[in-house]
C-alpha cells in the first residue's frame, strides 16, 4: 500500500502542463458537445413542449370560459416556432367532449393534448 501510494505520488509520465493542455482541449470539445447534445435531446424538445402545453391550456380555458363549443384550427408562432392548435368538439348526448391538441406545424407530431367534458347548458365560473 505504501509502495503504491509512493508510486502514484511520483508519477513521471506526463507533466501537469501536458495534462492541463489536454484537459483544456477536451473541455473545449466536450462542453459545447454536451450542450449541443443536451440541447438536441432535451432542451429544444422541452421548449417546444412547454410552448405546446401553454397553448393547449390557453385554448382549453378560452373554449370553456367563452363556451366556444365548435371545432376550430389555427396557427400560432412562439419564438419562431409554428404551432398548429386544434379544438375538436364531440357530442356525447347531453355532454360534449372538448379535445385540444397542439402540434408543431412542420413535424405534424402532437406535443400537447388535453380533453375534458362539459354540459353546454351549464354556466362557468
Amino acid at each position, binding site marked *: 500500500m505504501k509502495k503504491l501510494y509512493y508510486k502514484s505520488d511520483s508519477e513521471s509520465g506526463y*507533466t501537469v502542463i501536458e495534462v492541463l493542455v489536454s484537459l483544456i482541449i477536451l473541455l473545449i470539445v466536450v462542453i459545447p458537445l454536451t450542450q449541443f447534445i443536451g440541447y438536441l435531446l432535451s432542451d429544444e424538445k422541452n421548449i417546444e413542449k412547454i410552448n405546446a402545453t401553454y397553448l393547449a391550456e390557453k385554448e382549453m380555458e378560452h373554449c370553456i370560459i367563452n363556451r366556444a363549443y365548435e371545432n376550430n384550427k389555427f396557427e400560432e408562432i412562439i419564438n419562431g416556432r409554428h404551432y398548429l392548435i386544434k379544438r375538436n368538439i364531440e357530442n356525447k348526448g347531453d*355532454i360534449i367532449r372538448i379535445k385540444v391538441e397542439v402540434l408543431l406545424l412542420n413535424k405534424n407530431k402532437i406535443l400537447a393534448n388535453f380533453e375534458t367534458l362539459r354540459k353546454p347548458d*351549464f354556466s362557468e365560473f
Partner: protein
Amino acid sequence: MWKNILKEDGSSLITVMAITTIISATLLIILSYLLIQTKHLHSKENYLTAKYNSEAGIYVYLSELEKYWHYQKWMRPVNRTININPKDSVLITAYPWGSFIHLESYSQKKDQSFKLRTYIGLNPSAVFNSSVVLNPKYSPVVLTGNTKIYGDMRTGKHGVKKGTLAGKPFTGSKLVYGEIIRSEVDQRPSIEKEYLHSLYTDFRLILSQNVTDNFNEIVSDTSTIISFAHSSNPIENILYITNKDLNLRNRHISGPLTLISKEKLTINSSLKLDNHIQILSNKSIIIKGKVNFENVLFYSPENIIISNPNYFEGQVFSENSIQINRNSRLDYPSVLVVYTEKDTGSIQLYPGSNVSGSIIYLTEKDTLLFGQYRGKIVIHENAQLNGLIYSDNFTTLSGHVNGTVITDRFYFYYSPTNYFNWINGATIDREAIKSNFKLPIFFKSSGNYLTPLYFR
C-alpha cells in the same frame, strides 16, 4: 500540491482528479437542470390532465343527476368511480348538504392529483329575473315612503299604486324602474316541498337516534384542532355533543361530521368549524361568540339566533324562527330556511345585518292562517339581503334587497293599523345581484337546471 505543480513533480494524478471532478460536477449540474426541467414539464402536463379530468367528473355526475332526478338518487351519499376516457377515471363523492348537494371529484395522473369541490345548486329560470313576484290574488301593491324598485314586477291584475302613510306620500319619481307585468296567473315558482320534507325528516331522524358516541370521550380536553377528514360524508360520524364541548377552549373542528345535542346550545367561544359540520339540536341554538364557521349547517325545531360572527357561511334550518342580529354578516351561499307546520314563525334580519344567499319561509300545509299573525320574513331598516327572498306567507320590507322577492303578500304594521300588501321605505334592486347567484336545490320543479355554484 501547488508546490508540486510548480516543480512538475508527481502532481499530475491529483490535478487530473481535481479537474475531472470539476468537469463532472459541471456536467452533472447541466444534466440535473435538464432533468428537473423535463420532470417539471411532465408534472405540469399531469397536473392539467388531472384538473380537466376532475372537472369532467363533475359534469358527468351532474348529467346523471339531472337525468335521474325524479328517482331521487341524490338522497343517498355517493362514493364511486366514473370513467372519463379509456385511460382515466375520477372518484366522485357526493351527499345532500341542506339546500345543495356537496360534490367532490378527485383525479390522479401519475405524480399529480387534483380535487375539485363544489355545491350543486340551480341556475335560476327566467321568472327569477324579476325583482318582485307576488300572489296575483292580492293586488294592487301599494308603495309608500321612499320605496324604490328596480327591475320587473309581476303582480295581479291591479298592478301597483302609490299610497300615503300617516301623511307621508310616496316620494319616488317612478313607481317601478322596470316593467309591471300584470297577470291573473300565479307566476311564483314552486318549491319541491317533498325535498324540504325529506330534509327535515332526516334531521329529526338523526336527532332521535340513540347515539352512544360522545364527542368529549373521543376528543381530549386539551385538543384544540380536531379533524374528521377521514370521513367521506357527515353521516358517517355522528357524535353527541354538549354545550360545554362547544365552548371549551377556542377549538377548531373540521368535518365531515354530525354533532347532535338535546340541550340548548349557546356558543360564546371563538369556535372554528369547517368542512361540512352539521349541528342538530332539539332545543334552540344561539351563536354569539366570535366564531368562524364555513360549510356549516344548523338545525333546530326551535329558534336559531346568530349575533355578530367573525365569519359565517352556512345554512340554518328551523321550524320556528331565525334571527340575524344587528351587524351580523352571513356570506354567500348562506341559506336561512323556516319550514314549519305552524304558520306563525319568522325570519328576521335586524338593522345592519347583511346576508348573501337565500331566505326561505315555507309552511308545510297549503291552507294558511288569516290575519296579521301569519309567518313572515322581516328585513328591518338598514338590513340587507343579497339574493332571494321566498315566502309563502308575508314579507315585511324596510331594508334593502339586492335580488328577487317572491312572496304571497307584503305586510307591515304601523300602529294601530295592519297594512296588507304595502311596502314602506324598502329598496329592491334585481340588477344589483351578481349574475352567478344560484338557487337552493328545492326549486328544481320550477324548470331550473342543476349547476355547480363554484369550483374550489
